[in-house]
């Protein structure tokens, strides 16, 4: 679900760690512990590797020490703000197969885009590129579901204007879900860019609010760890 997924979906990203969204269940965690033991992975930060922290929305951070993966970082999460349950994510996943037979199970693009709506600067240009790449790849033969995805997630004013001109009815239908579509058919690029910035600002603020209690808990855990050393 991290940088590697972004590369596969079309963004130009250089990611040094690997992020996994996993099902938070006792049985699955047992399987994950076996896989992490193969990688000789150690937890390198708070919180500890426990189900209760994953279920709250924390990420668990590992560093691997097995020779073929020495130094590699792995992050595991199970719950993300604004993103559906793991069961739904898994149902909508995309499976890609490499020439060597390796399968990659990716979060679907719409889910990945939702997961990227964070407080961090770097995630927003990434969302823009991901949706642009999908738009350019499929705009000649858009499926209904894709049209909806583009209307709800495109962050490029020029393309939103183009899309609204091509499909005005769909645009109007989705105004309730994305109020800035009200002006997509008539606004200038500048106006729409401003509306997109405001939309981003609100999402980032929502993410900051979401993380306030989680960050406080992380801070407590850090302090407790320091006291125990």
């Amino acid at each position, binding site marked *: 679900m991290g940088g590697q997924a972004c590369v596969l979906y079309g963004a130009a990203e250089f990611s*040094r760690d690997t992020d996994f969204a996993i099902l938070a269940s006792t049985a699955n965690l047992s399987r994950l512990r076996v896989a992490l033991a193969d990688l000789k992975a150690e937890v390198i930060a708070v919180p500890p590797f426990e189900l209760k922290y994953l279920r709250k929305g924390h990420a668990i951070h590992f560093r691997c020490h097995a020779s073929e993966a020495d130094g590699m970082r792995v992050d595991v999460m199970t719950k993300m703000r604004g993103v559906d349950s793991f069961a739904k994510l898994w149902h909508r996943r995309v499976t890609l197969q490499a020439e060597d037979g390796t399968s990659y199970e990716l979060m679907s693009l719409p889910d990945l885009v939702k997961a990227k709506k964070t407080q961090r600067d770097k995630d927003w240009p990434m969302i823009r590129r991901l949706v642009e790449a999908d738009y350019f790849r499929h705009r000649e033969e858009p499926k209904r579901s894709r049209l909806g995805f583009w209307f709800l997630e495109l962050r490029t004013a020029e393309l939103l204007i183009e899309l609204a001109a091509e499909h005005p009815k769909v645009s109007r239908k989705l105004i309730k879900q994305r109020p800035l579509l009200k002006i997509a058919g008539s606004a200038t690029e500048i106006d729409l860019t401003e509306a997109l910035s405001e939309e981003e600002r609100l999402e980032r603020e929502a993410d900051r609010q979401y993380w306030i209690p989680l960050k406080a808990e992380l801070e407590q855990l850090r302090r407790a760890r320091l006291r125990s050393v």
Partner: protein
Amino acid sequence: MISAEQLVGEELANWYSLTPMERWRESVKLWREYVAMGGSLDPEPDTQSPFFDPAAPSSRPVDGRSGLRVVRRGRV
């Protein structure tokens, strides 16, 4: 219709036009070169991340040397 080249330039438009597995292969090549040059395997510190911990330990460069450093700077 706006073309990808018009919007994002030729280089990124070419990247968009690759298949997922072509992008994956290019990314793997880049990764191998990065590792061969001794690049750090730790993500760049991201102070905006809720997970950011200024006291977190970092790993050594993969080749055990001192890692990449700037040896010459051009004038800005």
